[in-house]
């Protein structure tokens, strides 16, 4: 369980960095910059990964509960 927590923490940490820097890039880019879409994809993928992670940890939690029942 503790290993899971550390994994979850570190993973979210990395994804947070990706999202944070993507946002910074986007803010510094003019509206018409052709690379905006690409950076947006990076950010969206990282956000998707965080959502996946949340689902994974919930499923894990349910499984642990099921085991102890």
């Amino acid at each position, binding site marked *: 369980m503790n290993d899971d927590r550390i994994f*979850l*923490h570190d993973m979210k*940490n990395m994804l*947070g960095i990706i999202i*944070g*820097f993507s946002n910074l890039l986007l803010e510094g880019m003019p509206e018409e910059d052709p690379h905006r879409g690409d950076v947006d994809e990076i950010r969206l993928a990282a956000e998707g990964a965080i959502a996946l992670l949340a689902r994974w940890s919930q499923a894990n939690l349910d499984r642990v509960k099921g085991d102890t029942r």
Partner: protein
Amino acid sequence: MSPLEHQTVTELPRATSLGKVLVVDDVSANVDLLNTLLSREGYTVLTASDGQQALEIVAREHPDLVLMDVMMPKLNGFGVCEQIKQNKATRLTPVVLITALCKREDRIQGINAGADDFLIKPINIHELTARARSLIRLKRYTDDLDTAESVIVSLALVIEARDAYTDGHCNRLADYATALGSALGLGNEDVAALYRGGYLHDVGKVGIPDAVLLKSGRLTQEEYKAIQQHPVIGDRLCGELRSLRRVRPIVRHHHERLDGTGYPDRLTGDDIPLLAQIMGIVDVYDAITTERPYKPAVRSDRAFEELMDEVKQGWRRRDLVEEFIRLMQLTRRPAIDTP
């Protein structure tokens, strides 16, 4: 003048920094990210990559705020926070713990370590700067209080810390109340009283046992009576302090209602001091929009409806509530990471 010259004129460095923020994280990319965000907003940023280094910098540089990751090798964020808060010279330095997990136990451990606030990764820049701004403001405020008043303010923050659910409540109330007061055109002294009132309104809860204050089930009539004593106790605590003269009516009357069904003095209509009415409105709003042991958090539009219901019931002044709603809708900023 060439465009270049013009640029150097407009981009003169800011004369004063908004404050000194120490960022602590063992992952250097995180430090870089926060450093970039905060420098851009006008803060002076110091950085540390582990707990020991953080403690040294706090002692030497007296930052206005510490933003710290919880999970770090060796000395973790909780440990560092505890040491900052146990040292007399640094205990008033606000500490915000940053965690990638939003587990309730983490928050409780953080509150026990004396943390002033929490942020959850991935960090939202608006949330970050809002917290930084209000905590630094609070620090400046406590920096120049007389000792007696600062004791009462710390007392108020201790009460807030007793209940994990009211975490940040004082801070938000001070913000909402001063915003509403300024929008209504109140004078500086009144707005300042609202600010202090935000922190002190519930100070009387020190006199109420945990078993009652934190109870999640239904309250017995006696317990309810005990809770209703908190404005009276708070008023007495502020006692003879000259600096709190304008704050006392807020503390005593923030639970009164226009129709006389409030407490402790069952005042009606205009007999309820205006500043206390303002505090009452923002207190209700914050209570509704925050998660509590007996209910989940509610969206702000639902809270606006409930406030308007209270107007219809004759509890609150319509003009004040409408102004507050207008203000909240105006200042509500979209999160930066919404597509």
